[in-house]
């Protein structure tokens, strides 16, 4: 399957891996930030309700 691939095909794939990894890690960090904020907001609502402060 891979025998017909040219040298430039492999070179392009190798560099695309870096581009994808760069973008992927940025997206992952962004997701972690959003999740952290959402979890924190949910926890504060629960705590307020538990303390009798209402929703």
């Amino acid at each position, binding site marked *: 399957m*891979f025998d017909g*691939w040219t*040298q*430039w095909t*492999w*070179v392009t*794939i*190798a*560099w695309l*891996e*870096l581009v994808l*990894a*760069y973008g992927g*890690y940025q997206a992952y*960090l962004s997701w*972690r*930030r959003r999740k*952290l*904020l959402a979890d*924190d907001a949910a*926890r504060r609502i629960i*705590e307020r*309700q*538990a*303390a*009798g402060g209402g929703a």
Partner: protein
Amino acid sequence: MIDAAARLRRPLWLRTYLGITLLLFLAAAAFGLVFSPRDVTQGDLIRIMYAHVSVAWIAFVAVGLTAVFGALYLWRGQRRDDVLAVASGEMGLFFAGLTIIGGMTYSRPTLNTFWTWDAKLTLTAIMVALMVGYFIVRGLIDDPVRRGRVSAVVAIVAAASLPFNYLAAEWFRTLHPAKSVALDGSGVTMDGTMLAVLLFNTVVAGMIYLGFMIDRVRLGRVEAALEEERAQAVTQPAPVGKEVVRV
């Protein structure tokens, strides 16, 4: 109560720094893909080397620093060392995983195989497995102090493999090529332009490591602060006369 949203917002200097690293990454790719000469034996495949070797070196640095920060946490017990260790550990896993994938992409057209269980590749796979284990351990332990201590030991074990990995191509029969540049800069067996492109790529990979690391540390600090806030809320006595839990 901490303002998590404000603390998570990237400051202008960090956004600028990350923007510059992105531009430098594009420049490094241009140097590797356009300006580097073709290799006599590998032809254009040498252009993969710049992506693979620079990332591998930074993976070693990241895993090594994870162990250093872990050791500092064991010694001083300060939460910030654990936050730094986690950030560097994530970078270590990121770069080491990329090293393996890039290495496979480089190996197939040059050595006619994606993978072989020789010393160098096996040690790298073990390093990645240990870094995965580092995060599994962290996910299994709730107590932050115990979590930091146990994972620090795992990081030190992972880092202990680094010298063997670095010298594996010389010590053992392996498909992986021997190093072309020694740590002290001696023993250079590559063309001067290629070496310059490789070093530039390595510097840029290091800058990306630093930028991602700073971003991840900022997230880790907020996570740690929220965790401490939650722990304090649990240990504080309930106000007298107030209903604590409504069912």
